[in-house]
């Protein structure tokens, strides 16, 4: 496993990404990762807050469009995250903090289709806010705070 991570880290591409002085290398990928976070988590929270009763005049039917935005943020961060990981695979790959972050993200992302089903059903009936949707919204709010904390701790601890 460590050899695999080392070969990833020592590839010519990782080397370029890590050490190029260009703002289009590492800084651009890091910016995309932050932007993707804002898009994914911001949109999740927007829906969560609506489910929990804020801005009730926003029609739930209009918010079906928010799922596409969440997935856009998710894929931006999956790609940029893999690239960032490649620059320091041996240092980050084995840490509990990084594995913890991935678990938290997995739970957060798994919550998205669950919320969709809880609010919109199979799409044939009207949308409604069920107690299950509320519980999932609270989970989503909290899990993303924890995922952000894990990500920030990776940079500073």
């Amino acid at each position, binding site marked *: 496993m460590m050899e695999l991570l080392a070969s990833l880290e020592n590839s010519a591409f990782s080397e370029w990404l890590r050490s190029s002085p260009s703002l289009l290398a590492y800084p651009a990928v890091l910016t995309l990762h932050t932007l993707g976070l*804002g898009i994914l988590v911001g949109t999740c929270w927007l829906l969560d807050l609506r489910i929990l009763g804020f801005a009730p005049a926003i029609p739930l039917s209009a918010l079906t469009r928010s799922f596409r935005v969440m997935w856009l943020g998710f894929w931006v961060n999956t790609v940029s995250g893999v690239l960032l990981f490649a620059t320091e695979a041996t240092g980050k790959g084995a840490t509990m903090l990084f594995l913890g972050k991935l678990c938290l993200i997995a739970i957060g992302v798994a919550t998205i289709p669950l919320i969709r089903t809880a609010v919109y059903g199979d799409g044939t009936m009207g949308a409604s806010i069920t107690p299950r949707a509320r519980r999932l919204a609270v989970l989503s709010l909290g899990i993303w*705070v924890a995922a952000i904390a894990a990500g920030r701790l990776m940079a500073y601890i």
Partner: protein
Amino acid sequence: MSEHLVTWLKATTLSEMIIGSRWVWPLCETLHFVGLALLLGTAGLFDLRLMGFLRGVPIAAVMRMRIWAAVGVLINLVTGTIFFIGAPGQYVGNRAWWAKLTFLLIAMLNVAVFETRHGKALLTLPPEADTPLSYKIAGVVSLGSWLAVLYFGRMLPFLGDAF
């Protein structure tokens, strides 16, 4: 002038507490990113509707969500101030920081001007209606300047030498 400010700030107990603690900085970083996501999600929705997207969503309804954008801005102003008090030296000479502050000012002025000029008229816009050009411009300026704030925040260590 700025050198005196940096020296004075660095000598304060508060500054020493922020830098001396193992947890204050990462905790504030976490909150700063929470504020970022909150702001981008809720202000983004409002800005997109101002630009004329998301027809069917009444602007008056979206405005209720703006309180969370304000919460996000407030969290980030407080945590940002803490970063500045902790390590003023890495910001005052950093051109990315000045760019970030400039776009922050533009974003805030844009909200203030838009609110005074169109705050009332906004509430009567029908849900399906397109928005006038002045709303669209305000939406583009808002979203554009918040994204610029994010970009220059991320560039603090690359255009300057912040950690």
